[in-house]
């Protein structure tokens, strides 16, 4: 007769206690809401100085890569002084949620929305709508569809990331690389990672000895990446290398190689922050970690956004003065951050982000 839908019977004498408990819980919930400090987008600073509200949208909030970008952005906003920075994004990287956030900011009438599109197709309608409403839209970290943004703060194109990952793995494996390799991605439906994988496959043709045998999802879960790598190592005993295209898979995959005692025998490379990978680079499991300066990326994005909002950045400009970051080249719609960084045993000690 019983099941979990059926509540236990309540003794009448519990009533007062229950009421009290319920009220306390309600009060507590509201208190949490009340305690959160308001950073209303539409309020302007008391100083009277013109403030620009810039919204920075990551692909996924609460992963170290974007947290580190956001730190750079915050620092830049502080330096600039006329920027009110809003950093928020979907916790689990749901692109539809990101679209809703862009939509909300459009309604709030913020000055700039800087988008790192998790799924450019999904975000395109919302970004176009924002442009139409007079909100500046730029992309950073990953590009959007043409016509959805004014500038793209480009740390690397999907092509460059894909090619670099492939080339780095081939180089790490050694001269005349030969044998099976595998890719570990975050989710099977992540648009940006699928784009990188696409370019990895194209570049793979340059290395006839290498054969891509498996692409496995880690579902944004390090432990899953760990297990998948273990399975791959067992299923393909002569596996030569693994590319972890997601920072949400790289440390887990590296750990599996290390625990299997295959450090040095199976090469692994991928995208991640030096902080998360330092131990593996130092102990020799990972030869190269590929990334760009995330702090600088966040900072440059904010500076471009501020310049765009204040009219300092005009169409046709060939360079952009990014203050402490130096002069950056502008090619078409793209503001270039600089080269990709490859972290290895020699240089990883110098970077902390």
């Amino acid at each position, binding site marked *: 007769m019983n*099941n979990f*839908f*059926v*509540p*236990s*019977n*309540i*003794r*009448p*004498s*519990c*009533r007062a206690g*229950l*009421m009290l*408990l*319920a009220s306390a*819980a*309600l009060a507590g*919930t509201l208190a*949490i*809401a009340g305690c*959160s400090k*308001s*950073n*209303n*987008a*539409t309020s302007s600073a008391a100083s009277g100085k013109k403030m620009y509200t810039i919204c920075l949208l990551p692909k996924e*909030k*609460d992963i170290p890569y974007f947290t580190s970008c956001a730190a750079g952005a915050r620092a830049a906003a502080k330096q600039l002084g006329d920027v009110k920075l*809003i*950093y*928020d*994004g*979907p*916790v*689990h990287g*749901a*692109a*539809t*949620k990101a*679209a*809703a*956030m862009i*939509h*909300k900011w*459009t*309604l*709030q009438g913020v000055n700039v929305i800087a988008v790192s599109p998790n*799924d450019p*197709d*999904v975000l*395109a*309608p*919302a970004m176009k*709508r924002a442009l139409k409403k007079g909100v500046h839209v730029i992309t950073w970290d990953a590009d959007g569809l043409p016509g959805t943004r004014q500038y793209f703060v480009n740390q690397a194109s999907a092509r460059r990331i894909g090619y670099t990952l492939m080339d780095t793995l081939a180089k790490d494996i050694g001269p005349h690389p030969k044998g099976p390799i595998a890719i570990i991605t975050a*989710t*099977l*439906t992540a*648009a940006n990672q*699928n784009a990188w994988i696409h370019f990895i496959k194209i570049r793979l043709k340059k290395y006839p000895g290498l054969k891509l045998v498996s692409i496995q999802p880690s579902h944004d879960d390090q432990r899953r990446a760990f297990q998948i790598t273990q399975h791959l190592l067992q299923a393909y005993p002569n596996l030569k290398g693994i590319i972890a295209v997601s920072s949400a898979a790289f440390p887990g995959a590296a750990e599996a190689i290390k625990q299997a005692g295959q450090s040095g025998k199976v090469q692994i490379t991928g995208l991640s922050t030096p902080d998360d990978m330092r131990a593996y680079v130092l102990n020799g499991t990972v030869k190269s970690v590929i990334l760009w300066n995330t702090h600088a990326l966040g900072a440059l994005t904010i500076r471009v956004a501020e310049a765009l909002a204040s009219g300092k950045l005009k169409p046709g400009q060939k360079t952009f003065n990014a203050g402490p970051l130096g002069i950056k080249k502008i090619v078409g719609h793209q503001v270039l951050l600089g080269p990709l960084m490859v972290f290895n045993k020699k240089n990883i000690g110098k970077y902390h982000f």
Partner: protein
Amino acid sequence: MTATNGMNALHPAGNKNHGTGPAAGPGALKRLASFPWWHEVILAILLICLLTYAGSVAPMFLRPGVQIGLSDRLWNVALLALPMMMIILTGGIDLSVGSTMSLSAVVFALTFTHGAPLWLACVAAVATGLACGFLNGIFVAWVRVHPLIVTLATLAAFRGVAEGISLGRGISGFPPGFQAIAHHNILGLRPEGWLFIAAAAYTAIVLAKAPFGRYLYAIGHNEMAARYSGIPTAKMKLFLYSLSGMAAGAAALFAVARVDTARANLGYGMELKVITAVVFGGVSIFGGRGNIVGVIMGLLLIYETREFISWQWNNDNLISIIIGGLLITSVLLQVALRAGKTAQ
């Protein structure tokens, strides 16, 4: 809990106290306690408090243009909440709605990209939803497996098939006319909104006034007695799950139109959002009790809370914490009120 429960002792058969009729007897206090709309009133009060607060700290939030603009994210949850409410009223549950959405969306996109006309692709999407719901219904009504288990399995299976046939790719580039169904207002409201209002009005009438509605409550309270009264319980369940699937198919079309992309991750986690809204609206998770007014209040309160927190504090995590807390608290209040009623 010991058996010193007054309810139990008086009515050994009744281990639950959610009678549909008010307790008889004089006394204003008693009548107050047996007032059947407490839950809705509490939700309304909370909603008014929230909106008043929102109006005082962010007047812009209450502007009709903003509200209608923000409503995009309300409608698909709302649309799915109606069949879900009816399923929960019968004591069932449908965890597969989000996955059904993803499969419908993928089928729509694949049909379209393979050269079918748009209308045919739309029909294919809704038919896919219907087929998914029908499969759930078969297992629940005929094979008689617990709905939680059936839909837990199809939760994985439908999305899995969507991933399998689309290979995880996003498919976009639908004609502007199709996108318009999610972006253009008719008389100040999205087409999806009008669809919901029409469906809700119809559901309200059915639940309150039609034999079908009465049968739903009867099944939720006592399925066997309903069956022995000649109520076609199996057919009704089959219908409800099919309806839920079909609604998911339709919701998928609107969702695809909104983002102009169909991908197998569409509607991820939708089931819990819908169930949360329904339960929040006072529908008893064990069936037989609840009404459409409550569900609409629940939907509005959750949605306004969500949007306001997002508007004011830009914190996705905070929303989850508050919604989780409110969910437990609202049911706690319900239970406490009912306990109060018992003690009268």
